[in-house]
């Protein structure tokens, strides 16, 4: 997928000026944040499970070599074909090769963020194959020719009114506004595609080493149909998605759905273990699993490794005050919000996403809700340090911080400068005691006032007090 993270500021400004987005995003806090808060109360040991999930994910990351080979062995034993891809281009080519070998003309897809990373849909379409997204949110953005703005709710940036307009335009049917009716309409349009597609592509929430299964967590049933109806199925998964056992999957699921949508469990949990076996009623004749690196081993060997624990629940973005206000598109690549601010520079290069690690208040709301305890603010700070080391910060910022650092190390100079600043600020604040325009500080005073200093520093007042007392 094209990376436009360097346009973060411009796109964020556009997002802030978009009342439709504001309206659509207001659902996020109400639904996801409240939903999560309520559903974790169902568990009396949520924090214990969270710690266990973190440790299990860390264990898996520390034993990827062993677990992935175990996965391959078990999947192959059940008749699946396991492929390995080092880059996104290799993923696309592998999928195309499989499609060509099987005379595939139409593909139905269940949601895959990894597919977004590699730009799979456009690649396959350019090769003359029809690709249909079947997750309702993904379907909407495919019809609108947009990119997902959320990892589990890809069309969260659109209001139902906008979707009604889109369906009316694309489906050429009477405009509907009732969400249930719109969903039925999309289902009616999609049904023939499910039935006549030659191939299904899904992502994977987890790969289970013990059984060689790939598994997906869905709510709409489209994932189940994508993995079972077409004669060929391809699952694509990052190397970090492997978990040792079914037990591990089942306890981590208790956190995943609650953290994501506030559900105790999703409507569908689909485990695919090998192709259709003798006696099976349905299932694909061929089952391919593509296991993908695409930058992950590089992250594994870096100080950002904790980010690979991510189980893609989206809680960090749902709870992020920045994401809540600008949505996912300004982040400019596949993963938005706090996890995106870490993964994007890690996968596409720090120099291609300079604003992202800085576009956070470090409030740590993301860190405290993350079901696998990824220390997101710490990782963003690590990336900020790397930017300084690599000279990626503007010179004005560097000079400013150097000056601040030097002054703060020299208390006598510091005392004089603050003395002057306190008086100047008091004068500039006038009778309202508010500075409306700060020269060089328009970032602050563009949209808020700066309360003026009282006029004398604490240091001065304290010295004066000490003199009075003696």
């Amino acid at each position, binding site marked *: 997928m094209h990376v436009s993270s360097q346009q973060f500021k411009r796109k*964020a400004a556009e997002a*802030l000026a978009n009342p439709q987005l504001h309206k659509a995003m207001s659902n996020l806090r109400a639904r996801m944040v409240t939903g999560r808060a309520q559903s974790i109360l169902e568990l009396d040991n949520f924090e214990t499970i969270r710690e266990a999930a973190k440790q299990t994910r860390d264990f898996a990351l520390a034993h990827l070599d062993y677990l992935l080979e175990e996965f391959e062995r078990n999947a192959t034993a059940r008749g699946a074909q396991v492929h390995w891809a080092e880059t996104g281009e290799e993923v696309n080519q592998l999928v195309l090769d499989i499609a060509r070998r099987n005379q595939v003309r139409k593909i139905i897809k269940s949601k895959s963020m990894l597919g977004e990373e590699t730009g799979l849909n456009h690649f396959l379409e350019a090769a003359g194959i029809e690709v249909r997204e079947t997750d309702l949110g993904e379907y909407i953005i495919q019809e609108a020719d947009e990119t997902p703005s959320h990892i589990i709710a890809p069309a969260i940036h659109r209001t139902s009114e906008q979707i009604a307009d889109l369906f009316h335009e694309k489906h050429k049917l009477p405009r509907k506004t009732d969400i249930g009716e719109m969903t039925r309409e999309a289902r009616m349009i999609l049904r023939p595609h499910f039935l006549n597609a030659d191939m299904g592509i899904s992502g994977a929430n987890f790969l289970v080493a013990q059984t060689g299964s790939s598994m997906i967590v869905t709510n709409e049933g489209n994932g189940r149909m994508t993995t079972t109806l077409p004669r060929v199925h391809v699952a694509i998964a990052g190397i970090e998605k492997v978990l040792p056992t079914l037990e591990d999957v089942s306890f981590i699921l208790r956190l995943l759905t609650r953290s994501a949508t506030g559900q105790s469990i999703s409507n569908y949990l689909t485990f695919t273990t090998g192709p259709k076996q003798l006696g099976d009623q349905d299932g694909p004749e061929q089952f391919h699993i593509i296991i993908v690196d695409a930058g992950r081993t590089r992250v594994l060997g870096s100080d950002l490794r904790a980010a690979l624990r991510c189980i893609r629940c989206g809680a960090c973005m749902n709870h992020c*005050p*920045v994401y809540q*206000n*600008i949505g996912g598109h300004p982040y400019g690549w596949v993963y938005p919000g706090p996890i995106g601010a870490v993964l994007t520079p890690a996968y596409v290069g720090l120099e291609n996403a300079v604003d992202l690690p*800085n*576009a*956070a*208040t*470090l*409030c*740590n*709301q993301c*860190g*405290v809700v993350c079901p696998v305890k990824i220390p997101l603010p*710490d990782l963003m*700070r690590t990336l*900020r*340090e*790397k*930017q*300084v*080391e690599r000279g990626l*910060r503007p010179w004005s*910022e560097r000079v400013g*911080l*150097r000056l*601040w*650092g030097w*002054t*703060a*190390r020299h*208390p006598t100079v*510091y005392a004089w400068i*603050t003395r002057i*600043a*306190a008086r100047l*600020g008091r004068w500039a604040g006038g009778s*309202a005691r*508010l500075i409306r325009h700060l020269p060089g500080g*328009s*970032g*602050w005073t*563009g*949209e*808020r*006032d*700066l*309360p003026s*200093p*009282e006029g*004398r*520093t*604490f*240091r*001065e*007042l*304290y010295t004066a*007090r000490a003199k009075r007392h003696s």
Partner: protein
Amino acid sequence: MRIGLFVTCLVDLVRPRIGLSALKLLEGAGCEVVVPATQTCCGQPGYNSGERAAAQTLARKVLEEFALCDYVVTPSGSCGGMIKAHYPELLCEFPELEAEVQRLTARTWELADFLVNVLGLQDVPGRFQGTVTYHDCCSGLRELGVKSQPRQLLSKVSGLTVTEMATPEQCCGFGGMFAVKFGAISARIADQKCNDIAGTGAGAVVLGDLGCMLSIEGRLRRRGDTKTKVLHFAEVLAGATDDAG
């Protein structure tokens, strides 16, 4: 009991009244308070901007300045959080400092936390006529567990009623340099806080961090709200506000 007051750079420059209020509360509770004269900044602006070396120098300076105090108390959740939650990582390249860093983090307290959990303060001198709402500052809340302490203390202020806003734990949008680098996003986040405060009908929002204070007050005033006061809990507890009656 010798207490070192870490005033913080923003209190020193912008609202010295808060530092004096903290002094009044601590001395009123019978503590011996020293204010190391050479103190400047905890290093947080550098730390959060990726200027690790500059932050390390300032952290080492704090370490030396407060070496002789039994406790270090600061009227700021974010500066307290910087010392307690981040100095160990920031100074991990200096193993020779490890013991001293541990000693400092164990002795450092955010003011409300200290007044409640170390001093067990029962009475406060402040009086306040009216209703206030409390904003939980992110660092104090999530790094130091400051949540009930300031509310407990405010409940002892004669005449004061606390009414909770809908989402007191939601960030105000400050984030240090974030508020300057991404001013428009920051202001939009602050808007939610302003709406939340307005929803309570309280005459004042009380909090425990200067950054949030500047952010919230600045946005309230720009929106045309000249009435709602923005106060540090230390001012209220010490009776240093105009509403002390």
